């Protein structure tokens, strides 16, 4: 393979990996109404991807913000958390703009296994709150 082919392949790969689908996923294991959160998050045009998991008394949300809003992503997460806390006063709401939280929440939704879910949610929250 010539060097030109390698460079071409790398370019194509890098361009294609930019197209990872950003979708809005919601999973509800409680009797709360998830549509309120859905509406709030879909209306916000700074957000391009969401994974939200309602479980027991917890609401765990990972968000992906648009590139130029990334400078303020913690502020956006805090703002949304505040709004959602008003909407769901009975739930412990946690919102994070960290991509680790988004991917792990997505994994939990895909796995669809309620056993030990609460422990995993607690683990994720403690991870996200770590500073260093």
């Amino acid at each position: 393979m010539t060097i030109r082919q390698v460079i071409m392949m790398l370019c194509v790969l890098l361009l294609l990996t930019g197209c990872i689908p950003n979708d809005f996923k919601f999973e509800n294991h409680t009797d709360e109404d998830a549509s309120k959160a859905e509406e709030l998050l879909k209306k916000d045009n700074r957000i391009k991807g969401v994974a939200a998991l309602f479980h027991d008394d917890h609401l765990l949300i990972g968000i992906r913000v648009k590139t130029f809003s990334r400078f303020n992503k913690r502020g956006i997460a805090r703002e949304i958390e505040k709004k959602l806390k008003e909407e769901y006063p009975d739930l412990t709401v946690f919102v994070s703009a960290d991509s680790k939280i988004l991917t792990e929440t997505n994994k939990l939704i895909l796995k669809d296994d309620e056993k030990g879910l609460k422990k995993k949610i607690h683990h994720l929250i403690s991870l996200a709150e770590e500073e260093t």
Partner: protein
Amino acid sequence: MDKEKYAKLEQEISPKAPLLKNVIKAFLVGGTICLIAQFIALFYMTFFDFTERTASNPTVATMIFISMLLTGFGVYKKIGQAGGAGGAVPITGFGNAVVSAAIEHKTEGFVLGVGSNIFKLAGSVIVFGVFSAFLVALIKTILVKMGVVSW
């Protein structure tokens, strides 16, 4: 020959540095180093319990470790020659500066040779690094207080 005349003569004789070419080279080499570091950060985030925020520490440590190995094997010299500032500015340049000084002064003994000279080049990196960190923190504090960015 006075000072001005000499400066003029020196300008005429010395070959012109290909500025644009050097800039592009530095951009490509530095960018490649950062791309590798991004993949390492992703690796730590995917397979270990690190978040975007905490993954930076092990990533920096890994990058320094790799550059130290490459310096020892004499590969980083070539990267630095090709990339110029692109090889020196990322954290890998720091690892290179520490290890190359240590290798150079190894013959003078471990205490007075390696120990006292290991930060000969990297010392200035630390001094100006601390100073610029102070300045950046100051600017960020002001921006946060003004509400432009968040912590």
